[in-house]
Protein backbone atom coordinates (compact mmCIF):
# COMPACT_ATOMS: atom_id res chain seq x y z
CA UNK A 1 0.00 0.00 0.00
CA UNK A 2 1.21 3.49 -0.86
CA UNK A 3 1.44 6.10 1.89
CA UNK A 4 2.60 9.69 2.35
CA UNK A 5 5.10 10.34 5.11
CA UNK A 6 3.46 13.27 6.90
CA UNK A 7 6.74 14.67 8.14
CA UNK A 8 7.27 16.31 4.74
CA UNK A 9 4.91 19.16 5.69
CA UNK A 10 7.23 22.06 5.01
CA UNK A 11 8.35 20.78 1.61
CA UNK A 12 4.77 20.32 0.45
CA UNK A 13 3.79 23.72 1.81
CA UNK A 14 6.69 25.39 0.00
CA UNK A 15 5.48 23.91 -3.27
CA UNK A 16 1.99 25.29 -2.65
CA UNK A 17 3.51 28.70 -1.95
CA UNK A 18 5.51 28.45 -5.16
CA UNK A 19 2.53 27.71 -7.39
CA UNK A 20 0.59 30.71 -6.07
CA UNK A 21 3.52 33.12 -6.19
CA UNK A 22 4.41 31.99 -9.73
CA UNK A 23 0.84 32.62 -10.86
CA UNK A 24 0.36 36.00 -9.16
CA UNK A 25 -0.19 37.92 -12.38
CA UNK A 26 -2.23 35.19 -14.07
CA UNK A 27 -4.65 35.03 -11.12
CA UNK A 28 -5.03 38.80 -11.06
CA UNK A 29 -5.69 38.83 -14.79
CA UNK A 30 -8.42 36.18 -14.44
CA UNK A 31 -9.94 38.16 -11.57
CA UNK A 32 -9.66 41.42 -13.48
CA UNK A 33 -12.20 40.29 -16.07
CA UNK A 34 -15.10 40.13 -13.61
CA UNK A 35 -13.74 41.05 -10.18
CA UNK A 36 -11.37 43.50 -8.55
CA UNK A 37 -8.27 42.12 -10.21
CA UNK A 38 -6.53 41.68 -6.87
CA UNK A 39 -6.84 37.92 -6.36
CA UNK A 40 -3.26 37.18 -7.39
CA UNK A 41 -1.88 40.10 -5.39
CA UNK A 42 -3.64 39.06 -2.19
CA UNK A 43 -3.05 35.33 -2.52
CA UNK A 44 0.63 35.77 -3.37
CA UNK A 45 1.04 38.11 -0.42
CA UNK A 46 -0.45 35.61 2.04
CA UNK A 47 1.34 32.56 0.65
CA UNK A 48 4.68 34.34 0.45
CA UNK A 49 4.40 35.47 4.07
CA UNK A 50 3.66 31.91 5.07
CA UNK A 51 6.61 30.58 3.08
CA UNK A 52 8.90 33.04 4.83
CA UNK A 53 7.59 32.15 8.26
CA UNK A 54 8.28 28.42 7.92
CA UNK A 55 11.66 28.64 6.16
CA UNK A 56 14.16 26.18 7.59
CA UNK A 57 11.67 24.57 9.98
CA UNK A 58 10.79 20.93 10.18
CA UNK A 59 7.00 20.64 10.15
CA UNK A 60 4.42 17.91 9.99
CA UNK A 61 1.82 18.23 7.26
CA UNK A 62 -0.75 19.21 9.88
CA UNK A 63 1.45 21.93 11.37
CA UNK A 64 2.33 23.25 7.92
CA UNK A 65 -1.31 23.46 6.82
CA UNK A 66 -2.27 25.02 10.15
CA UNK A 67 0.40 27.68 9.72
CA UNK A 68 -0.85 28.37 6.21
CA UNK A 69 -4.41 28.72 7.53
CA UNK A 70 -3.56 31.18 10.29
CA UNK A 71 -1.28 33.20 8.01
CA UNK A 72 -3.98 33.53 5.36
CA UNK A 73 -6.66 34.42 7.91
CA UNK A 74 -4.38 36.92 9.59
CA UNK A 75 -2.87 38.57 6.57
CA UNK A 76 -5.09 38.71 3.52
CA UNK A 77 -8.61 39.49 4.69
CA UNK A 78 -11.20 39.94 1.98
CA UNK A 79 -13.14 36.77 1.22
CA UNK A 80 -10.17 34.60 0.36
CA UNK A 81 -8.53 34.87 3.80
CA UNK A 82 -11.43 33.23 5.62
CA UNK A 83 -12.32 30.81 2.80
CA UNK A 84 -8.85 29.37 2.23
CA UNK A 85 -7.98 29.83 5.89
CA UNK A 86 -10.84 27.60 7.02
CA UNK A 87 -10.18 25.09 4.22
CA UNK A 88 -6.56 24.58 5.28
CA UNK A 89 -7.46 24.67 8.97
CA UNK A 90 -9.95 21.85 8.42
CA UNK A 91 -7.29 19.87 6.57
CA UNK A 92 -4.79 20.52 9.35
CA UNK A 93 -7.19 19.28 12.03
CA UNK A 94 -7.94 16.03 10.27
CA UNK A 95 -4.23 15.14 9.94
CA UNK A 96 -3.24 16.24 13.42
CA UNK A 97 -1.92 13.02 14.92
CA UNK A 98 -0.93 11.27 11.72
CA UNK A 99 2.64 10.25 10.92
CA UNK A 100 1.64 8.70 7.61
CA UNK A 101 -1.38 9.23 5.38
CA UNK A 102 -2.86 6.50 3.25
CA UNK A 103 -5.21 7.20 0.34
CA UNK A 104 -8.24 7.16 2.61
CA UNK A 105 -6.69 9.56 5.15
CA UNK A 106 -5.87 11.93 2.32
CA UNK A 107 -9.50 11.92 1.19
CA UNK A 108 -10.66 12.55 4.75
CA UNK A 109 -8.27 15.48 4.95
CA UNK A 110 -9.84 17.07 1.87
CA UNK A 111 -13.37 16.40 3.14
CA UNK A 112 -12.58 17.92 6.50
CA UNK A 113 -11.29 21.06 4.77
CA UNK A 114 -14.49 21.33 2.78
CA UNK A 115 -16.54 20.92 5.94
CA UNK A 116 -14.69 23.76 7.69
CA UNK A 117 -15.11 26.01 4.66
CA UNK A 118 -18.83 25.34 4.52
CA UNK A 119 -19.19 26.34 8.14
CA UNK A 120 -18.01 29.86 7.38
CA UNK A 121 -19.65 30.40 4.02
CA UNK A 122 -23.05 29.71 2.49
CA UNK A 123 -21.48 29.29 -0.95
CA UNK A 124 -22.56 26.25 -2.96
CA UNK A 125 -21.47 24.40 -6.08
CA UNK A 126 -22.80 26.37 -9.04
CA UNK A 127 -22.24 29.79 -7.43
CA UNK A 128 -19.07 30.30 -9.53
CA UNK A 129 -16.57 30.11 -6.72
CA UNK A 130 -13.76 27.91 -5.45
CA UNK A 131 -16.26 25.25 -4.31
CA UNK A 132 -16.93 24.54 -7.98
CA UNK A 133 -13.38 23.23 -8.12
CA UNK A 134 -13.14 21.78 -4.64
CA UNK A 135 -16.30 19.71 -4.45
CA UNK A 136 -16.01 17.68 -7.69
CA UNK A 137 -12.32 17.18 -6.93
CA UNK A 138 -13.08 15.65 -3.56
CA UNK A 139 -15.88 13.51 -4.99
CA UNK A 140 -13.82 12.18 -7.89
CA UNK A 141 -10.98 11.35 -5.53
CA UNK A 142 -13.30 9.60 -3.07
CA UNK A 143 -15.00 7.61 -5.85
CA UNK A 144 -11.62 6.52 -7.16
CA UNK A 145 -10.52 5.29 -3.73
CA UNK A 146 -13.84 3.52 -3.14
CA UNK A 147 -13.61 1.77 -6.50
CA UNK A 148 -10.26 0.33 -5.51
CA UNK A 149 -7.80 2.69 -7.22
CA UNK A 150 -4.43 3.00 -5.54
CA UNK A 151 -3.16 6.31 -4.14
CA UNK A 152 -1.48 7.37 -7.41
CA UNK A 153 -4.52 6.58 -9.52
CA UNK A 154 -6.79 8.40 -7.09
CA UNK A 155 -4.51 11.46 -7.27
CA UNK A 156 -4.93 11.42 -11.04
CA UNK A 157 -8.71 11.38 -10.56
CA UNK A 158 -8.23 14.35 -8.24
CA UNK A 159 -6.32 16.30 -10.91
CA UNK A 160 -8.99 15.58 -13.51
CA UNK A 161 -11.72 16.65 -11.11
CA UNK A 162 -9.92 19.90 -10.30
CA UNK A 163 -9.53 20.82 -13.97
CA UNK A 164 -13.11 19.95 -14.84
CA UNK A 165 -14.34 21.85 -11.80
CA UNK A 166 -12.32 24.92 -12.72
CA UNK A 167 -13.55 24.79 -16.31
CA UNK A 168 -17.17 24.43 -15.18
CA UNK A 169 -17.05 28.01 -13.87
CA UNK A 170 -16.60 29.36 -17.40
CA UNK A 171 -20.29 29.10 -18.23
CA UNK A 172 -21.65 29.80 -14.79
CA UNK A 173 -23.36 32.99 -13.76
CA UNK A 174 -21.78 34.28 -10.55
CA UNK A 175 -24.04 34.00 -7.52
CA UNK A 176 -21.70 35.25 -4.82
CA UNK A 177 -18.82 37.66 -4.39
CA UNK A 178 -18.28 40.82 -6.31
CA UNK A 179 -18.80 39.18 -9.71
CA UNK A 180 -22.40 38.36 -8.68
CA UNK A 181 -23.27 41.99 -9.39
CA UNK A 182 -22.46 41.30 -13.03
CA UNK A 183 -25.13 38.61 -13.40
CA UNK A 184 -25.20 37.39 -17.00
CA UNK A 185 -22.08 39.39 -17.81
CA UNK A 186 -20.02 37.07 -15.59
CA UNK A 187 -20.51 34.18 -18.05
CA UNK A 188 -17.61 33.38 -20.35
CA UNK A 189 -14.99 34.05 -17.68
CA UNK A 190 -13.36 31.64 -15.26
CA UNK A 191 -13.73 32.34 -11.55
CA UNK A 192 -10.41 33.39 -10.03
CA UNK A 193 -11.01 31.45 -6.79
CA UNK A 194 -11.82 28.31 -8.77
CA UNK A 195 -8.59 28.80 -10.74
CA UNK A 196 -6.38 29.26 -7.67
CA UNK A 197 -8.08 26.29 -5.99
CA UNK A 198 -7.32 24.16 -9.06
CA UNK A 199 -3.68 25.23 -9.05
CA UNK A 200 -3.37 24.38 -5.37
CA UNK A 201 -5.09 21.00 -5.57
CA UNK A 202 -3.08 19.88 -8.59
CA UNK A 203 0.16 20.95 -6.95
CA UNK A 204 -0.88 19.18 -3.75
CA UNK A 205 -1.51 16.03 -5.80
CA UNK A 206 1.88 16.36 -7.54
CA UNK A 207 3.73 17.04 -4.28
CA UNK A 208 2.04 14.08 -2.64
CA UNK A 209 2.63 11.69 -5.53
CA UNK A 210 6.32 12.57 -5.66
CA UNK A 211 6.65 11.52 -2.03
CA UNK A 212 4.57 8.35 -2.01
CA UNK A 213 6.32 5.35 -0.61
CA UNK A 214 5.50 1.76 0.21
CA UNK A 215 4.13 1.38 3.70
CA UNK A 216 6.33 -0.56 6.05
CA UNK A 217 4.94 -4.03 6.35
Amino acid at each position, binding site marked *: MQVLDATHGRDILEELVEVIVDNRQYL*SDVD*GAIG*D*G*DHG*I*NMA*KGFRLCGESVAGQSLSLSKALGTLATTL*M*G*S*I*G*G*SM*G*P*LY*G*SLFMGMAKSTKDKNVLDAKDFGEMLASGREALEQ*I*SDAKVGDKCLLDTLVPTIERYRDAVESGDDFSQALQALRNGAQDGRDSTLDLEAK*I*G*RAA*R*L*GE*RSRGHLDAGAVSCCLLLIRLADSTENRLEKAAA
Partner: protein
Amino acid sequence: MQRIINDPDNVVDDAIKGYLHASPSLFAATDHSRVLKYPDSPSDKVGIVTGGGSGHEPAFLGYIGAGMCDAVAIGEIFSSPTADAFLEAFRSAPHEQGVACLYGNYAGDNMNVKMAKQMAEMDDIEVKTVIARDDVASAPASERDKRRGVAGEVMMWKIGGAAAARGDSLDEVIRLAQKAVDACSSIGVGLSSCTIPANGKPNFSIEPGHMELGIGHHGEPGIEVAPLTSAEAIATAMCDPVLSDQDFAGSEVAVLISGLGATPVMELNILYAHIAERLEDAGIRVHRTDIGNYFTSLEMMGATLTLMKLDDELKPLLDAPARSLAITQC
Protein backbone atom coordinates in the same frame (compact mmCIF):
# COMPACT_ATOMS: atom_id res chain seq x y z
CA MET B 1 -1.76 56.84 -12.88
CA GLN B 2 -1.53 60.35 -11.52
CA ARG B 3 -1.42 59.44 -7.84
CA ILE B 4 0.38 60.66 -4.73
CA ILE B 5 1.76 57.32 -3.57
CA ASN B 6 4.96 55.40 -2.89
CA ASP B 7 4.84 51.63 -3.34
CA PRO B 8 1.33 50.86 -4.65
CA ASP B 9 1.23 47.74 -2.46
CA ASN B 10 1.69 49.85 0.70
CA VAL B 11 -0.87 52.63 0.21
CA VAL B 12 -3.02 51.57 3.16
CA ASP B 13 -0.18 51.47 5.68
CA ASP B 14 1.28 54.69 4.31
CA ALA B 15 -2.09 56.44 4.66
CA ILE B 16 -2.55 55.21 8.25
CA LYS B 17 0.76 56.90 9.14
CA GLY B 18 -0.60 60.18 7.82
CA TYR B 19 -3.83 59.91 9.80
CA LEU B 20 -1.90 59.16 12.99
CA HIS B 21 0.35 62.19 12.50
CA ALA B 22 -2.50 64.51 11.56
CA SER B 23 -5.06 63.68 14.22
CA PRO B 24 -3.49 62.29 17.38
CA SER B 25 -6.53 63.40 19.38
CA LEU B 26 -8.78 61.14 17.27
CA PHE B 27 -6.54 58.20 16.38
CA ALA B 28 -4.35 55.97 18.52
CA ALA B 29 -2.43 52.96 17.27
CA THR B 30 -3.17 49.52 18.74
CA ASP B 31 -1.41 46.14 18.85
CA HIS B 32 -2.56 45.55 15.26
CA SER B 33 -1.19 47.81 12.53
CA ARG B 34 -4.58 47.78 10.76
CA VAL B 35 -6.62 48.81 13.80
CA LEU B 36 -7.01 52.34 15.13
CA LYS B 37 -8.94 53.40 18.20
CA TYR B 38 -10.29 56.61 19.62
CA PRO B 39 -7.96 57.30 22.57
CA ASP B 40 -10.54 58.82 24.93
CA SER B 41 -13.44 56.34 24.86
CA PRO B 42 -14.89 55.82 28.35
CA SER B 43 -14.45 52.17 29.35
CA ASP B 44 -17.92 51.79 30.89
CA LYS B 45 -19.99 52.21 27.74
CA VAL B 46 -20.92 49.81 24.96
CA GLY B 47 -18.10 49.71 22.42
CA ILE B 48 -18.84 50.59 18.81
CA VAL B 49 -16.62 48.94 16.21
CA THR B 50 -16.70 49.24 12.47
CA GLY B 51 -14.43 48.26 9.64
CA GLY B 52 -14.19 47.65 5.95
CA GLY B 53 -11.97 47.94 2.94
CA SER B 54 -9.93 51.08 2.32
CA GLY B 55 -10.53 53.53 -0.51
CA HIS B 56 -13.77 54.90 0.94
CA GLU B 57 -12.21 57.64 3.07
CA PRO B 58 -13.27 59.28 5.27
CA ALA B 59 -15.05 55.92 5.85
CA PHE B 60 -14.36 53.95 7.88
CA LEU B 61 -11.74 55.47 10.16
CA GLY B 62 -13.19 58.98 9.89
CA TYR B 63 -16.14 57.87 11.96
CA ILE B 64 -14.28 57.00 15.14
CA GLY B 65 -14.37 59.62 17.87
CA ALA B 66 -16.56 60.99 20.64
CA GLY B 67 -20.21 59.99 20.26
CA MET B 68 -19.26 57.83 17.26
CA CYS B 69 -17.32 54.55 16.81
CA ASP B 70 -14.53 53.55 19.21
CA ALA B 71 -12.29 51.37 17.04
CA VAL B 72 -11.95 50.55 13.36
CA ALA B 73 -10.54 47.59 11.43
CA ILE B 74 -8.89 48.66 8.19
CA GLY B 75 -8.68 46.42 5.13
CA GLU B 76 -6.76 46.58 1.88
CA ILE B 77 -8.34 48.74 -0.80
CA PHE B 78 -11.88 47.46 -1.45
CA SER B 79 -11.15 44.32 0.56
CA SER B 80 -12.40 43.28 3.99
CA PRO B 81 -10.12 43.60 7.01
CA THR B 82 -8.90 40.30 8.41
CA ALA B 83 -10.66 38.49 11.24
CA ASP B 84 -7.59 39.25 13.37
CA ALA B 85 -8.09 42.97 12.74
CA PHE B 86 -11.77 42.86 13.69
CA LEU B 87 -10.86 40.90 16.83
CA GLU B 88 -8.25 43.47 17.84
CA ALA B 89 -10.79 46.24 17.21
CA PHE B 90 -13.21 44.47 19.61
CA ARG B 91 -10.43 44.29 22.19
CA SER B 92 -9.38 47.91 21.66
CA ALA B 93 -12.89 49.31 22.04
CA PRO B 94 -14.61 49.49 25.42
CA HIS B 95 -15.96 45.95 25.80
CA GLU B 96 -17.07 45.37 29.39
CA GLN B 97 -20.65 46.23 28.38
CA GLY B 98 -20.32 44.39 25.07
CA VAL B 99 -19.43 45.51 21.58
CA ALA B 100 -21.71 46.53 18.72
CA CYS B 101 -20.03 45.83 15.38
CA LEU B 102 -21.72 48.00 12.75
CA TYR B 103 -20.65 47.30 9.18
CA GLY B 104 -21.84 46.87 5.60
CA ASN B 105 -23.18 43.81 3.80
CA TYR B 106 -20.27 42.38 1.80
CA ALA B 107 -19.25 38.70 1.65
CA GLY B 108 -15.71 39.21 2.96
CA ASP B 109 -16.75 41.46 5.83
CA ASN B 110 -19.48 39.01 6.82
CA MET B 111 -17.04 36.10 7.03
CA ASN B 112 -14.27 37.97 8.82
CA VAL B 113 -16.64 39.50 11.38
CA LYS B 114 -18.21 36.08 11.97
CA MET B 115 -14.81 34.53 12.65
CA ALA B 116 -13.69 37.45 14.82
CA LYS B 117 -16.90 37.19 16.81
CA GLN B 118 -16.20 33.51 17.51
CA MET B 119 -12.65 34.34 18.58
CA ALA B 120 -13.95 37.15 20.84
CA GLU B 121 -16.14 34.65 22.67
CA MET B 122 -12.95 32.98 23.91
CA ASP B 123 -11.96 36.37 25.40
CA ASP B 124 -15.45 36.68 26.96
CA ILE B 125 -16.22 39.71 24.81
CA GLU B 126 -19.85 39.80 23.78
CA VAL B 127 -20.24 41.06 20.21
CA LYS B 128 -23.50 41.78 18.41
CA THR B 129 -23.74 43.03 14.87
CA VAL B 130 -25.84 45.24 12.63
CA ILE B 131 -25.25 44.90 8.91
CA ALA B 132 -26.14 47.90 6.75
CA ARG B 133 -28.25 47.09 3.68
CA ASP B 134 -29.41 50.45 2.40
CA ASP B 135 -28.51 50.40 -1.33
CA VAL B 136 -31.88 50.17 -3.10
CA ALA B 137 -30.24 49.46 -6.47
CA SER B 138 -28.49 46.29 -5.30
CA ALA B 139 -31.64 44.19 -4.73
CA PRO B 140 -35.41 44.74 -4.53
CA ALA B 141 -37.04 45.54 -1.19
CA SER B 142 -38.34 41.93 -1.05
CA GLU B 143 -34.72 40.73 -0.97
CA ARG B 144 -33.41 43.32 1.42
CA ASP B 145 -30.98 40.86 2.97
CA LYS B 146 -29.02 40.88 -0.30
CA ARG B 147 -28.62 44.64 -0.42
CA ARG B 148 -25.20 46.24 -0.09
CA GLY B 149 -24.40 48.74 2.61
CA VAL B 150 -23.47 52.18 1.34
CA ALA B 151 -23.69 55.70 2.79
CA GLY B 152 -26.53 54.70 5.10
CA GLU B 153 -23.73 53.25 7.20
CA VAL B 154 -22.87 56.80 8.24
CA MET B 155 -26.36 57.15 9.77
CA MET B 156 -26.00 53.78 11.48
CA TRP B 157 -22.69 54.82 13.08
CA LYS B 158 -24.10 58.17 14.17
CA ILE B 159 -27.22 56.67 15.75
CA GLY B 160 -25.41 53.69 17.31
CA GLY B 161 -22.56 55.90 18.50
CA ALA B 162 -24.91 58.42 20.13
CA ALA B 163 -26.93 55.67 21.82
CA ALA B 164 -23.77 54.10 23.27
CA ALA B 165 -22.45 57.51 24.37
CA ARG B 166 -25.57 58.22 26.45
CA GLY B 167 -25.19 54.87 28.20
CA ASP B 168 -27.66 52.61 26.37
CA SER B 169 -27.26 48.85 26.80
CA LEU B 170 -25.82 46.64 24.05
CA ASP B 171 -29.27 45.37 23.06
CA GLU B 172 -30.62 48.90 22.89
CA VAL B 173 -27.67 50.13 20.82
CA ILE B 174 -28.18 47.23 18.43
CA ARG B 175 -31.92 47.88 18.19
CA LEU B 176 -31.40 51.55 17.40
CA ALA B 177 -28.57 50.99 14.90
CA GLN B 178 -30.77 48.44 13.13
CA LYS B 179 -33.67 50.89 13.16
CA ALA B 180 -31.37 53.51 11.63
CA VAL B 181 -30.34 51.18 8.83
CA ASP B 182 -33.92 50.13 8.15
CA ALA B 183 -34.91 53.80 7.91
CA CYS B 184 -32.32 54.47 5.18
CA SER B 185 -32.70 54.16 1.43
CA SER B 186 -29.69 55.02 -0.72
CA ILE B 187 -28.64 55.08 -4.34
CA GLY B 188 -25.45 55.99 -6.18
CA VAL B 189 -24.68 57.35 -9.59
CA GLY B 190 -21.25 56.92 -11.20
CA LEU B 191 -19.79 59.13 -13.92
CA SER B 192 -16.33 57.57 -14.16
CA SER B 193 -14.34 54.56 -13.01
CA CYS B 194 -11.67 54.27 -10.33
CA THR B 195 -8.25 52.65 -10.16
CA ILE B 196 -6.83 50.56 -7.33
CA PRO B 197 -3.15 51.65 -7.26
CA ALA B 198 -1.82 48.07 -7.00
CA ASN B 199 -3.77 47.15 -10.15
CA GLY B 200 -2.80 50.25 -12.07
CA LYS B 201 -5.77 50.16 -14.42
CA PRO B 202 -9.40 51.24 -14.08
CA ASN B 203 -11.64 48.71 -12.31
CA PHE B 204 -14.38 49.03 -14.92
CA SER B 205 -15.44 51.58 -17.49
CA ILE B 206 -18.15 54.14 -18.01
CA GLU B 207 -18.22 55.58 -21.50
CA PRO B 208 -17.75 59.36 -21.74
CA GLY B 209 -21.10 61.10 -21.90
CA HIS B 210 -22.76 58.40 -19.81
CA MET B 211 -23.65 57.75 -16.21
CA GLU B 212 -24.42 54.54 -14.37
CA LEU B 213 -27.38 54.71 -12.02
CA GLY B 214 -27.25 52.40 -9.02
CA ILE B 215 -23.49 51.84 -9.19
CA GLY B 216 -21.92 50.30 -6.10
CA HIS B 217 -19.11 51.63 -3.95
CA HIS B 218 -16.60 49.38 -5.70
CA GLY B 219 -18.00 49.86 -9.17
CA GLU B 220 -20.56 47.07 -8.93
CA PRO B 221 -22.78 47.50 -11.98
CA GLY B 222 -25.94 49.49 -11.46
CA ILE B 223 -29.43 49.21 -12.83
CA GLU B 224 -29.14 51.47 -15.84
CA VAL B 225 -26.55 53.19 -18.02
CA ALA B 226 -27.98 56.44 -19.36
CA PRO B 227 -26.73 59.48 -21.25
CA LEU B 228 -25.26 62.12 -18.96
CA THR B 229 -27.45 65.18 -19.36
CA SER B 230 -28.09 67.61 -16.50
CA ALA B 231 -27.91 67.72 -12.71
CA GLU B 232 -31.69 68.01 -12.74
CA ALA B 233 -32.04 64.76 -14.70
CA ILE B 234 -29.59 63.00 -12.40
CA ALA B 235 -31.54 64.20 -9.36
CA THR B 236 -34.76 62.80 -10.83
CA ALA B 237 -33.13 59.48 -11.72
CA MET B 238 -31.78 59.15 -8.15
CA CYS B 239 -34.93 60.29 -6.34
CA ASP B 240 -37.38 57.97 -8.11
CA PRO B 241 -36.04 54.62 -6.82
CA VAL B 242 -35.32 56.05 -3.36
CA LEU B 243 -38.74 57.64 -2.90
CA SER B 244 -40.52 54.48 -4.02
CA ASP B 245 -38.51 52.28 -1.64
CA GLN B 246 -40.25 53.44 1.53
CA ASP B 247 -43.28 55.54 2.36
CA PHE B 248 -41.57 58.84 3.02
CA ALA B 249 -44.58 61.08 2.25
CA GLY B 250 -45.52 63.35 5.13
CA SER B 251 -42.54 62.32 7.23
CA GLU B 252 -39.43 64.08 8.31
CA VAL B 253 -36.09 62.95 6.85
CA ALA B 254 -32.35 63.45 7.07
CA VAL B 255 -30.59 63.73 3.72
CA LEU B 256 -26.98 62.72 3.12
CA ILE B 257 -25.36 63.54 -0.21
CA SER B 258 -21.89 62.07 -0.53
CA GLY B 259 -19.43 62.55 -3.34
CA LEU B 260 -17.68 59.42 -4.63
CA GLY B 261 -14.25 61.04 -4.52
CA ALA B 262 -13.67 63.11 -7.64
CA THR B 263 -16.85 65.12 -8.01
CA PRO B 264 -16.45 68.75 -6.83
CA VAL B 265 -18.50 69.54 -3.71
CA MET B 266 -19.96 72.45 -5.64
CA GLU B 267 -21.62 69.97 -7.99
CA LEU B 268 -23.04 68.02 -5.07
CA ASN B 269 -24.85 71.22 -4.10
CA ILE B 270 -26.10 71.72 -7.65
CA LEU B 271 -27.48 68.20 -7.44
CA TYR B 272 -29.04 68.83 -4.06
CA ALA B 273 -30.92 71.91 -5.20
CA HIS B 274 -32.97 69.66 -7.47
CA ILE B 275 -33.30 66.88 -4.91
CA ALA B 276 -34.63 69.40 -2.37
CA GLU B 277 -37.31 70.49 -4.84
CA ARG B 278 -38.34 66.89 -5.45
CA LEU B 279 -38.61 66.21 -1.72
CA GLU B 280 -40.71 69.30 -1.22
CA ASP B 281 -43.01 68.28 -4.07
CA ALA B 282 -43.42 64.86 -2.46
CA GLY B 283 -44.48 66.42 0.83
CA ILE B 284 -41.34 65.36 2.67
CA ARG B 285 -39.93 67.62 5.38
CA VAL B 286 -36.15 67.81 5.55
CA HIS B 287 -34.87 67.96 9.12
CA ARG B 288 -31.22 68.22 8.14
CA THR B 289 -28.99 67.86 5.11
CA ASP B 290 -25.31 66.93 5.02
CA ILE B 291 -23.38 67.36 1.79
CA GLY B 292 -19.73 66.43 1.23
CA ASN B 293 -17.38 63.51 0.78
CA TYR B 294 -18.66 61.17 3.47
CA PHE B 295 -18.24 57.76 1.81
CA THR B 296 -16.14 57.69 -1.35
CA SER B 297 -14.80 55.23 -3.91
CA LEU B 298 -11.21 56.31 -4.55
CA GLU B 299 -11.35 58.82 -7.42
CA MET B 300 -14.70 57.84 -8.89
CA MET B 301 -16.86 60.68 -10.12
CA GLY B 302 -20.43 60.60 -8.95
CA ALA B 303 -22.54 60.82 -5.82
CA THR B 304 -24.81 58.92 -3.50
CA LEU B 305 -28.13 60.01 -2.07
CA THR B 306 -29.29 58.64 1.28
CA LEU B 307 -32.69 59.40 2.74
CA MET B 308 -33.37 58.48 6.35
CA LYS B 309 -36.88 58.51 7.73
CA LEU B 310 -36.85 60.09 11.19
CA ASP B 311 -38.98 59.78 14.27
CA ASP B 312 -38.81 61.10 17.83
CA GLU B 313 -36.41 58.33 18.80
CA LEU B 314 -33.88 58.71 15.98
CA LYS B 315 -33.89 62.52 15.72
CA PRO B 316 -32.21 63.36 19.05
CA LEU B 317 -29.58 60.68 18.44
CA LEU B 318 -28.81 62.05 15.00
CA ASP B 319 -28.49 65.55 16.45
CA ALA B 320 -26.47 64.52 19.51
CA PRO B 321 -22.93 65.89 19.81
CA ALA B 322 -20.10 64.11 18.03
CA ARG B 323 -16.45 64.68 17.29
CA SER B 324 -14.80 62.70 14.51
CA LEU B 325 -12.92 63.40 11.32
CA ALA B 326 -16.04 63.18 9.16
CA ILE B 327 -18.77 64.39 11.49
CA THR B 328 -18.29 67.00 14.21
CA GLN B 329 -21.25 68.76 15.73
CA CYS B 330 -22.07 70.41 19.06
